[in-house]
């Protein structure tokens, strides 16, 4: 029997959804025009004013917002409310040294947590469940989002955060966790660890809500088999709120976008032209209910397809497929966004040539990242300890920038592979996207 957290919204008619979208979009455009000078300027440059947006059909007229825009106006440039109304920030990596800071009013937190609650209920969660949240807590939206959603549903929430596998398994068995929320690679890793310890029969898990990184159908089946659960996908990004922008239902064939809060579009990444449902392109979201940090037509750089086919679960909100790739060079390693340009920034600050290669792989279900850096005459000396210390310093600087440990390998100049004269910057051996 299908359950819904907010059935009157999740199963509303298409007309009702469109009505909400139009009403809210018009209000939001006025809000942003009045309170976000940076976006007002974009609208003015496009020859637009709030009166030109009369319904959701006019959405395509509005200018886009990109990650570079966020970087340029860091930290407050897209804030639509005074700071005193904001109760929280969450943060994620930026393309260089500057992180993205998203602001929330209490209202924004509530609607975000409602979205996560929808995901948990779609996965079969009720107040009887024990929700084991192993996404990272803190600035990262994963932990905060699923924690809040779990509270709303009324589950017993275990705020485990990531890491410390011994403790994860101990609580899972002692407290009878029934729903697991973490990255798919950590789920696979936990599954292996559980089997290694021979405690599989003490595990009471029935479902998992996995996201923050790409994962294939093969990985889904692997996790479902190893843990004896149904594994559901969840999608989101900090700029839009966090996880819960869309979520999978019992049909497990695409994720319902919470269209009453976020209007999705697919565009041609080169031209910006809006594409019809069923076509592949870049996913764009417009936040029509958020107060503090409402991004309009934000380009996610995720490549995707939207479909409005009827879903067997009864929900009427449009579905998006699993992301098919990126239109930029961002990587997700251990659930964390990594941009090659960040690595370049660190190398240049430390006096190395911006000649490097990133090798990403997955070993024992765990992502690994190695940065190969060319040695330079300035960095080299006869002292082994000094050169080793420089290597360690680089590891530290990368960790500070990326948030994760990246192995550093100092290599000879000209040893970094070149293909047709251009250095290949990223080698990703993980094969995460189904083509």
């Amino acid at each position: 029997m299908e359950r819904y957290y907010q059935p009157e919204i999740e199963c509303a008619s298409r007309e009702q959804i469109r009505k909400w979208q139009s009403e809210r979009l018009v209000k939001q455009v006025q809000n942003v025009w009045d309170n976000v000078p940076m976006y007002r300027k974009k609208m003015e440059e496009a020859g637009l004013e709030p009166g030109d947006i009369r319904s959701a059909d006019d959405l395509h007229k509005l200018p886009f917002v990109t990650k570079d825009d966020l970087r340029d106006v860091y930290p407050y440039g897209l804030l639509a409310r005074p700071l005193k109304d904001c109760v929280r920030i969450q943060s994620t990596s930026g393309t260089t040294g500057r992180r993205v800071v998203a602001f929330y009013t209490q209202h924004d937190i509530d609607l975000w947590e409602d979205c996560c609650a929808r995901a948990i209920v779609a996965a079969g969660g009720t107040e009887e469940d024990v929700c084991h949240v192993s996404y990272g807590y803190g600035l990262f939206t994963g932990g905060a989002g699923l924690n809040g959603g779990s509270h709303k549903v009324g589950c017993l929430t275990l705020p485990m955060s990531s890491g410390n596998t011994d403790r994860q398994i101990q609580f899972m068995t002692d407290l009878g966790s029934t729903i697991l929320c973490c990255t798919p690679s950590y789920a696979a890793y936990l599954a292996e660890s559980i089997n290694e310890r021979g405690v599989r029969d003490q595990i009471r898990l029935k479902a998992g809500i996995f996201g923050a990184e790409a994962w294939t159908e093969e990985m889904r089946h692997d996790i479902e088999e190893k843990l004896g659960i149904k594994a559901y996908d969840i999608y989101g990004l900090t700029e839009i709120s966090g996880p819960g922008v869309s979520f999978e239902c019992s049909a497990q064939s695409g994720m319902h976008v919470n269209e009453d809060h976020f209007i999705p579009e697919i565009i041609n990444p080169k031209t910006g032209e809006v594409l019809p449902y069923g076509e592949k392109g870049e996913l764009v979201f417009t936040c029509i209910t958020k107060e503090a940090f409402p991004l309009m037509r934000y380009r996610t750089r995720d490549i995707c397809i939207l479909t409005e086919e009827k879903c067997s679960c009864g929900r009427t909100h449009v579905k998006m497929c699993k992301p098919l790739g990126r239109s930029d060079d961002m990587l997700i390693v251990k659930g964390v966004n990594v941009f090659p340009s960040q690595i370049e920034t660190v190398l240049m600050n430390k006096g190395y040539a911006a000649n490097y290669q990133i090798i990403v792989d997955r070993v024992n279900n765990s992502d690994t990242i190695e940065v190969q850096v060319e040695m330079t005459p300035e960095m080299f000396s006869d002292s082994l300890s000094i050169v080793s210390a420089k290597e360690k310093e680089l590891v530290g600087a990368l960790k500070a920038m990326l948030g994760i440990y990246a192995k550093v390998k100092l290599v000879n100049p000209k040893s970094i592979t070149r293909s047709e004269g251009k250095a290949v910057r990223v080698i990703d051996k993980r094969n995460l996207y189904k083509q």
Partner: protein
Amino acid sequence: MTVKQISVFLENKPGRLAELTEVLSRNNIDMRALSLAEAADFGIVRLIVDDVYGASTVLKDADYIISISRVLALEIPDEPGALGRAITVLGENDINVEYMYAFTTRKKGVAFMIFRVEDNQRAIEVLKGSGIRPVCQEELMSL
């Protein structure tokens, strides 16, 4: 009273050291001594050669990263305790030895050790009268 040593950065990968020696031999660079210090992922090869300028040029052209430093080449009588004497004299005078390695010559009755110390001038001073003498570049090449 010091000699030049060439340090070469080497990736810790099979074949890298062989490549290096091959480059030198192809260019007729005669190695007098070689020492290899390793870290986890890379090594530093230290070379004493006859033609420092020639070797540096050849290595740089072959895209190696090098560094040149001045070290001591000490002639040590080939008898028990002689090396100990050198080390003791340096230690008593608080001169830190970073590393050392041996190299051979055709001269009989003596052994030669390359010493890297933190203060070459002071080391030379305190070694006077100890029976351990530092050898200079020209003499080394003739041995």
